[in-house]
């Protein structure tokens, strides 16, 4: 199981590393969104500072839909899904492997985004521990929900448009929770960020379990 997970995750990451999509397209896109928010809010420093956490996570949500699309596209082209099944890899392992690959890419983007909000929005980080834990825990939840929905829409017509419709409402608790936790980490609003981290962890656990259970059915029947 563990070996399978490593194989799938390494395969996806290797494809990403070689195609350089994350570095050459996704990261610039994320930076672009940050700049666009600056324009939309009229480069108003106080407004940007208060809204930083929310803008950060909205950007992550956009990037997540792109990352999941990519992750799905890898399996749909050349009938790779069938090949994965025929290779006798445990579906749950495929799910966790793909989840890890998406999460690693998202974390990389988040790293750049943190630097972006510090430079562009003048954000000051007060609690690195909370910031990093929020990124890791929220990202696992996003990648879990994203991977299972990605597999779900893989065979659907117009999957590029269906995926965000399905994924974004389900990620609503992550957006709320991660934004609040970030508010605490950046010291912009006095809230208990660690309590929100608990909610994010709950979301992550539920969606990892759900995904691991549903992935086999999705892989074999759709």
């Amino acid at each position: 199981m563990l070996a399978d997970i490593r194989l799938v995750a390494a395969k996806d990451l290797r494809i990403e590393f070689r195609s350089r999509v994350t570095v050459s397209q996704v990261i610039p896109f994320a930076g672009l969104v940050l700049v666009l928010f600056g324009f939309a809010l009229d480069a108003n420093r106080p407004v940007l500072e208060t809204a930083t956490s929310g803008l950060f996570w909205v950007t992550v949500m956009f990037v997540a839909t792109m990352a999941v699309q990519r992750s799905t596209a890898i399996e749909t082209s050349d009938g790779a899904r069938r090949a994965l099944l025929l290779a006798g890899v445990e579906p749950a392992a495929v799910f966790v492997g793909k989840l890890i690959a998406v999460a690693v890419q998202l974390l990389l983007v988040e790293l750049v985004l943190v630097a972006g909000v510090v430079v562009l929005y003048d954000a000051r980080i007060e609690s690195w521990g909370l910031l990093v834990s929020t990124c890791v825990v929220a990202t696992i939840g996003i990648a879990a929900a994203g991977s299972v929905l990605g597999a779900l829409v893989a065979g659907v017509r117009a999957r590029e448009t269906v995926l965000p419709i399905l994924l974004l409402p389900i990620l609503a608790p992550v957006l709320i929770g991660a934004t609040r936790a970030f508010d605490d980490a950046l010291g912009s609003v006095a809230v208990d960020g660690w309590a929100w981290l608990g909610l994010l962890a709950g979301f992550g656990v539920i969606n990892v379990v759900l995904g691991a259970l549903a992935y086999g059915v999705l892989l074999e029947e759709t």
Partner: protein
Amino acid sequence: MTQPIAPQAADQGSADAPASTGSRATMGLGLVVLVGVVAVVLLGFFGAPEDDQQRDAVRMIFVHVPSALLTYVAFATTALGSVMWLWKRSVWWDIVAHSAAEIGVMFCGLTLVTGSIWGRPTWNTYWDWGDVRLVTTLILFLIMVGYLSVRSMGDDDATATRASIIGLIAAVNLPIVNRSVEWWFDRTLHQKSSLTDGNLEDLTLFTLVLGIVVWGLFFTWAMIHRFRIGWLERELRSGDLHEAIAARRAEALIDGHFQSGASS
């Protein structure tokens, strides 16, 4: 390629496909609903007294509360139908899940619209982000619209499986959506349950209960019709396939005769 399963084959023990979506019983039920709607409208506008604080706006609860209740009933039915499809591969339950989702989205939309209209005179705003039930209901609405859009992308067994998993994901994530919104502002404008707080006048309460009963009957009536449409659609699809196979076979036979005639 997956071959569509005929409903009878997949779900033995069910009744044969109905020839139309109407029957004497549904017509009777429909008439009862119509009479009930007229009664609720008359009682709601002329019978029930206006509220001390909410004035005439209180009359909105005769539509709003029943719609909200039926939304939950409908989506719970969808979740149950999704489980039964994944577990038993029951076509019957799959059609029930799809039907309930469609009707549930309608009720959910009605709940949001009537709630907003009621909120304007009562809370002085159409929408309040701090209200847990409001925001949770909107997210539920959006998730179920996604469910229906996946349903509209196909009508085979794979689509049923996809939709069932979305139904389950929605059901499982809903409590956490609710919890997150609750913590988010930690306040609510929403009044406590209208039915149990005991402040309602007798006739208002009667009209509200009547509204719930009528809406419940309407839901049943709509479900029966929608289910029958779903069933007929499935029959049509499997019928089409059988006809196509028969036509192809007949073609092959003619070709065969022609070829044997030409060679002799």
